[in-house]
Each structure stands twice: as C-alpha cells, then as structure tokens.
C-alpha cells in the first residue's frame, strides 16, 4: 500500500538529489580535469597501496623452477620470471631492496580469497576461468613452440629450421605445436600426430620420431624431469594463437592497472624481449631457430 506521504518523500529526495548534483560540478571538475595526473599519481613511484607500505610483496611457488627462476631463489634476480618481477617492481618505484618474496603455491594464488602477496608471478596462463577469481596483468610472455629430441638424435645439433626439414617430427593433434610443424618447419616427411603429449613423448623415446614439438614450458619440463636424455633443439618463431602468461593480482586489486601498464612499458621498450633472450634462449638452453 502506498502511503500518502510517499509522493512527498520521493519529491523531497528528488529535490535533494537535484541540489546535490547542482552543487557537485564544482567538486567534480577537479578530478575529471586531472584524471590523467590522478591515474599517474595512483601509480606514483613507490607509493602504491601495497600490503606493507613502501614494499612490494611478490609471490611465487616453492620450489621455483628453472629457467623461470634460478637455484630456487626468486630473490637472486636470475631466471626469466625473477628478472621480469624485478623489472616490474623497479618500474613501479620499488628498487630491489624494497622487494620481498613470499612463497605461495600455484593453486592458492589463483584461488579466490585474501592474498598474502601484491603480485604473483608463476607461469600463470591467462584464461577466462581464472579471470573469475583473480586479476591478470597484460601478458609478459607469449608461449613459444619448441622442438625437443633426445641425445644422439640426428636433429640434436640442428641450428636452423632448414636443419629440421628432413626430420620425422611429431606433435599432439589440434595444438599450436602441430600448426608449428606444418606451417613453420614444413618437414619433407608427413609428421606423426598423437592423441596427447605423452604418446608423442613415448614415440620420441622409442625413436619412432626424431623430434617432437611442444610449448616451451612443457619442453623444459620434459627435458628436465621426464626424459633421461632430453635435449631442447630450439624455439620456433611465433605461430598461431599463443598461450599467454600474466602476473596474478587479487581480484579487483587497486594495483592491477599500474602493474599492467608497467608490463606494457617493459614490452614496448624491449626489456621483456631482452630478458627472454637472456634467460630462456641463452641460459635456459632454448636457442632460437630461424
């Protein structure tokens, strides 16, 4: 039932609202005018709303694997992700001394809920599902396809794409890896296609194929942990729609915009490319094939 005072109340509220909006332009003016500087202020060097003021807390898993990190010491600045983390921190106004590392398991980092880090870097692929639970920065790494083989294979010493032409290669069906074989390497022999990477790996171990193409993180894992005599031949030029790695932040974190633009700047000025070359191609042992 509508009380007879309701119209009066509604009218009163409307009047009050009108009055407020009438007065507000004066207050509104300054923020809109200085929107850009305000955004810049929000990302002012060293003054982000971090967990510990003045310090940037970065999370990653323990153990932290090569070549993304080195010696399981994220704080040593060695390894691709450690280097990227310090570059981002520096860009945000946190020199190495003001960076603190904390160990967060992979699953905890992308689970919803309070976070004990400001940013987390741990080879997180950016997916829509994960975006429901956490924030991602723009990508700091686009996953590359990589040829791996075993010691003694005829392509173990290949230096260029041309050296792979005569090889019998394998890849998983429906993947960017298979696309890399057919579109980038274009071998003379028909490639072998497998249901999954485990089958491809088995064929490689058996010598039924000379080499297989997998993405770089898988290549590091296979040659490092799974294959006894695994060798990374090299990374292929970018192909297809690559998987992207992004830095994880708490859902709705105030820092996401700033960290994301820091990553963008590092990509634009070529820092990321240099770090990738240093820590993945040279130190990581995954040279570029062209």
């Amino acid at each position: 039932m509508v009380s007879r005072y309701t119209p009066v109340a509604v009218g009163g509220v409307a009047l009050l609202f009108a009055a407020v909006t009438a007065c507000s332009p004066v207050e509104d003016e300054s923020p809109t005018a200085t929107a850009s500087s305000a955004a810049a202020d929000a990302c002012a060097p060293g003054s982000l709303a971090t967990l510990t003021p003045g310090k940037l807390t970065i999370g990653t898993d323990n153990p932290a694997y090569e070549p993304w990190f080195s010696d399981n010491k994220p704080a040593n600045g060695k390894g691709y992700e450690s280097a990227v983390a310090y570059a981002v921190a520096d860009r945000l106004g946190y020199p190495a001394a003001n960076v603190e590392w904390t160990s967060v398991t992979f699953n905890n980092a992308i689970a919803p809920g309070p976070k004990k880090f400001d940013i987390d870097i741990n080879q997180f692929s950016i997916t829509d599902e994960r975006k429901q639970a956490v924030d991602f920065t723009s990508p700091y790494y686009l996953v590359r396809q990589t040829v791996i083989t075993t010691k003694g294979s005829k392509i173990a010493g290949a230096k260029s794409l041309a050296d792979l032409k005569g090889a019998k290669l394998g890849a998983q069906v429906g993947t960017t890896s298979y696309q890399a074989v057919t579109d980038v390497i274009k071998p003379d022999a028909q490639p072998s296609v497998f249901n999954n990477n485990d089958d491809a790996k088995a064929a490689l171990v058996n010598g039924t194929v000379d080499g297989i193409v997998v993405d770089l993180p898988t290549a590091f894992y296979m040659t490092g942990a799974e294959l006894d005599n695994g060798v990374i031949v090299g990374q292929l030029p970018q192909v297809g729609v690559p998987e992207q790695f992004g830095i994880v932040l708490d859902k709705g974190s105030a820092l996401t915009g700033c960290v994301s633009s820091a990553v963008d700047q590092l990509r634009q000025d070529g820092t990321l490319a240099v770090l990738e070359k240093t820590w993945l191609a040279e130190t990581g042992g995954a040279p570029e094939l062209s």
Partner: protein
Amino acid sequence: MTYAPSTRQLERIAYRRRRAVRSVLLAALSTAVVGTLLAVAITGAPGWDRVKTSFFDPEAAAEYLPEILTGLWLNIRLLVVCAALALTLGLIVAILRTLRGPVFFPVRALATGYTYSFRGLPLIIVIYLYAFGIPGLRLQGTPDVLVLGAAAIIVTYGAYLAEVFRAGIESVHPSQIAAARSLGLSYRQAMRHVVLPQAVRRVAPPLLNDTVALQKDVGLISLAGPIDAIRAAQIGVAQDANFTPYIVAGVLFVLLALPLIGVTDWVTLRAARRQNAGT
C-alpha cells in the same frame, strides 16, 4: 513346332507385370513420404541452422577433402593388407584349434589362449602395446610404426575370424569326415577337400561382416602417429572449430563400405538359395 503361349498365359504375364509396376510405384511413393517427413523434422528443428553451419559447411568440406582423401588412401591400403593377413591367420589358428590327438595339446592350448586373450583385449590397447611397446625394446630392425600398428590390427581381428572359421569347421557334420576317411583320404586331405570348402562357404557372411568392421577399425592406427582419414578430419576440425571434416570422412567411409556390404548381401543370398535348392 514353336511355343505359343495361350491367351490365359498372356493374361497371367500381363497381370504379373501390372502388379510389379504397382508395387514399385507404391514403394517409391512411401519412400518419398518418409523422406519428406524426415527432412522436414530435421531441417525444421530450432537448432538446424547452427548444426548446418558447423556440420554441413561446403567450404570446409572442400578445404579438407584432399587431406582426408590422402588419409583414406592409407586406410584402403591397410584394409586390404590387414584383411588378407587376418583371414589367413584366423584360418590357420582355427585349424590348429581343431587338431585332434594328445600330441597337439600344446598347439591347441596356444591357439585357444590366443583367441581368448585377443578377443578380450581392446584393439586400442593392442595398438599401444605394439606401436609403443615394441619399438621401446630397441631391437635391431624394428619395423615402422605403420607395420606394427597393422600387426596389432591383424592379430586382434585374426582372433575373431579364427572363432568364426572354427564355428564353420565344427558345423560340418562328423559323418563327412568319417566318409572322407573311409574313402582313404588322410585327415589333412579330408580337411582340405571336404571340410574346409563347406565350412568357409557356411561362414562367408560373418567373415565378410567382420571385414566391414575391420575397415573402420584400421583407422585406429592413427593412435600410433600416422595420419589416416579420420585423423586428417580431426586436424581440420581442430583448425576450424567446424565438424564438417568428420562428416566428409564419414561419408567416404560409407562409400568405401558399400561394395563390401553389397558383396556380403549377395553371398548371403546365394548361400541361402543353395541351401534351399530343390525345395
């Protein structure tokens, strides 16, 4: 004196012809009605447009047809080789299983063990064992995975076919062997000239049926790495997120099976006619 059919006979022939024409027309009409109903039901479905674009896209079909055909050629070659060898293997094993006498017990036991285990083992697992297990032994002169995968198909289907052959051999009445032996034929001669011809003729339809099944299963060789028609279609599907290549491969497989199915039907019909000859 030349044969001149009577008026009554001519009437009879004309009547039969009218009935034949009438039944053909009726059959055509009822087929048309059923076909139209099916077409209306499928194309009238609310999701038909989406199904049409993702399953019946002529552009995608044309784009992937050459690769699927290349794959199909592999299927055809495999089919011919595997069918011939599986039939041979099946026949040999069936004969071994029917050998009499205590001396042959180990042979019978081996043959029985083989048919029991390979009829039970899923073909996929046999292919994995052969194509991934055998090269893993790193023996000298290990053949190509294609050969190994084909061998897996042959031993699996050989087990089914052996049982079909055995059923045929055992369906020949013992009096046939007794008669053959009393005529002075040895066991081997009796098998060769009396039992096997009858046995094979009796089981021809199930043998051909198994061959049709084999034709589809040769595609499982793609598990070992080679790209057959279905794998080529799968690659197309993965690239375009459109299922049309599967339909193309499916249609090609049906076309491939039609002659074999036709032969099966013909053989069955002929066998039935012979069986009932004189009745």
